[in-house]
């Protein structure tokens, strides 16, 4: 097994992304260059407000500065404590942890389905693919939320040159309705389903993942789901973050995941 790095890192940058969303940069992290989209870091505080560490998907890396970016929305004690960090303050990073997304073929179309604050690993995936020579036109970025406020970081997504398809439940930004309905419509285009040309990548709330899992099966399209779960340890020893498998038994989100193929989980 690859060694896990436990490392003190410092807050190097902070950008307000609106609606309680923050983009935080941390470094120096020696393993930054080896990090792949879908992986996460488990963050420990010196004087934690909460008890466990907090797992955050990696939203980007700067391999030159050896920095890691995470994006958070202030919701609970962990995200609040991160939001209160000042420049130069330290936290402990354990990582990179978990299995990354498996990249699609260069000619396939990547359908990224983001729900709310689930978008960071998908944004990282899109950036990572484009850096590696993938055509941005082969990436469709579906991004859903309840209202316009939930769709943050739009400028960076647009700048990538991907097809950006947002949807909000109240219609205040993009299409009105669920993002998964938009995905379904996309796959309903004659000749699209089961063509082997599309691969779905999804991250978001449980309802979204469930819907994407169903849609992937219905349209015979391969897909990968990135899960989130409260994690006491983050590297497989506590067995606390399990998810039930269709084949019976359980898988650890932190160790066998957080990325799972569609059709494998009993969601």
């Amino acid at each position, binding site marked *: 097994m690859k060694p896990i790095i436990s490392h003190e890192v410092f807050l190097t940058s902070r950008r307000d992304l609106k609606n309680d969303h923050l983009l935080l940069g941390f470094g120096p992290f020696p393993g930054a260059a080896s990090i792949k989209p879908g992986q996460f870091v488990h963050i420990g505080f010196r004087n934690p407000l*909460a*008890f466990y560490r907090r797992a955050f998907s990696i939203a980007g890396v700067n391999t030159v500065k050896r920095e890691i970016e995470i994006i958070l929305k202030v919701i609970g004690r962990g995200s609040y404590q991160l939001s209160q960090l000042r420049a130069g303050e330290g936290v402990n990073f*354990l990582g990179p942890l978990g299995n990354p997304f498996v990249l699609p073929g260069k000619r396939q179309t990547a359908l990224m389905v983001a729900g709310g604050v689930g978008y960071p690993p998908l944004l990282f995936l899109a950036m990572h693919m484009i850096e590696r020579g993938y055509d941005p036109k082969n990436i469709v970025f579906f991004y859903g939320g309840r209202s316009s406020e939930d769709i943050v970081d739009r400028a960076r997504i647009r700048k990538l040159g991907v097809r950006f398809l947002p949807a909000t439940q109240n219609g205040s930004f993009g299409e009105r309705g669920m993002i998964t309905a938009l995905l379904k419509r996309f796959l309903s285009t004659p000749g699209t389903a089961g063509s082997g040309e599309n691969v779905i990548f999804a991250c978001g709330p449980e309802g979204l993942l469930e819907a994407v899992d169903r849609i992937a099966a219905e349209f015979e399209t391969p897909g990968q789901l990135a899960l989130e779960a409260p994690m006491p*340890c983050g*590297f497989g020893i*506590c067995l606390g973050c399990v998810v*039930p498998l269709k084949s019976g038994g359980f898988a650890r989100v932190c160790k066998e995941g957080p990325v799972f193929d569609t059709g494998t989980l009993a969601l």
Partner: protein
Amino acid sequence: MNSPGMTSARTKPAPLNKKDTRETPDLSVEIAGYRFKNPIWTASGTCGYGEELDTVFDLNRLGAIVTKSITRQPRPGHPPPRCSEESGGMLNAIGLANVGVDNYIAEKLSFLDGYRIGVIVNVAGFSFQEYIEVCSMLADCPRADMIELNISCPNISSGGIEFGDNAKEVERVVSAVKKVFPRPIIPKLSPNVTDIAEIARGAEAGGADAISLINTLIGMTVNIETRRPTLSNNRGGLSGPAIKPIALSMVNRVYESVRVPVIGIGGAMNCRDVIEFMLCGASAVQLGTALFLQPDLPVIVERELKKYLKKQKLDTVTELIGKLEKY
């Protein structure tokens, strides 16, 4: 002694008069005739079978590893949610998820072959027969230096009352496994009892070579929106710093009630806590939940423990055991 990790004090007596042959300060401790290089162990259920933790730090730094509870058959464990976070600790109900003793022996135990540490296999059971079967299978595995008996399991044949609830039952189960396992047996006591000293005496009467305590305290928390308990099992075991004062008190009580060595467990989060346990009577201390927050903690505790001993002008860590100055 066939264990590569330890020297038996019986076959190879420690050179007591030649202090200079050991590192100063000396962190080694002797328990049940075995010498462990230090009193810093990892607790069952918080270090898996060792493989994952070894990716964070070199397991050779440990005195011993106590592996996840093994049962006769594989168990998938409880459905999620299995854990919930509390102030000062966590609740868990993993449900003794494990690979079963056959797979454990065939696939997991050998991982620890090359390590010079004590290997203590934690065994759980739901009947006398199950404890006996699992322990006798481990008897043939020399790498299993000792067995820690998880007696906080319901006994199916006595209406689900925990083995660890009753001193007579504890004595019976310990003496039964002593007959089939030739190396030391360490019963791990449950704190969910009226008189822990009585249970400890039962364990000693059954032939326990050492006693470890405490297991988690039974607890429950509720989500007030859904009105459901936070765990799928409804109840779970509370661990973490919240339980440390209870653990210290019980360790001290048991230390004063039995002659066999006591291993302290319960909410130790740092070196200071480890020293507290030793002063209360523990010959070794298991780090558990703390590993989730700081997986390389054993290495840090080892370093700080040496510093503390130097500062206290003590040559050996054993000089701390039970040296509590009570009022």
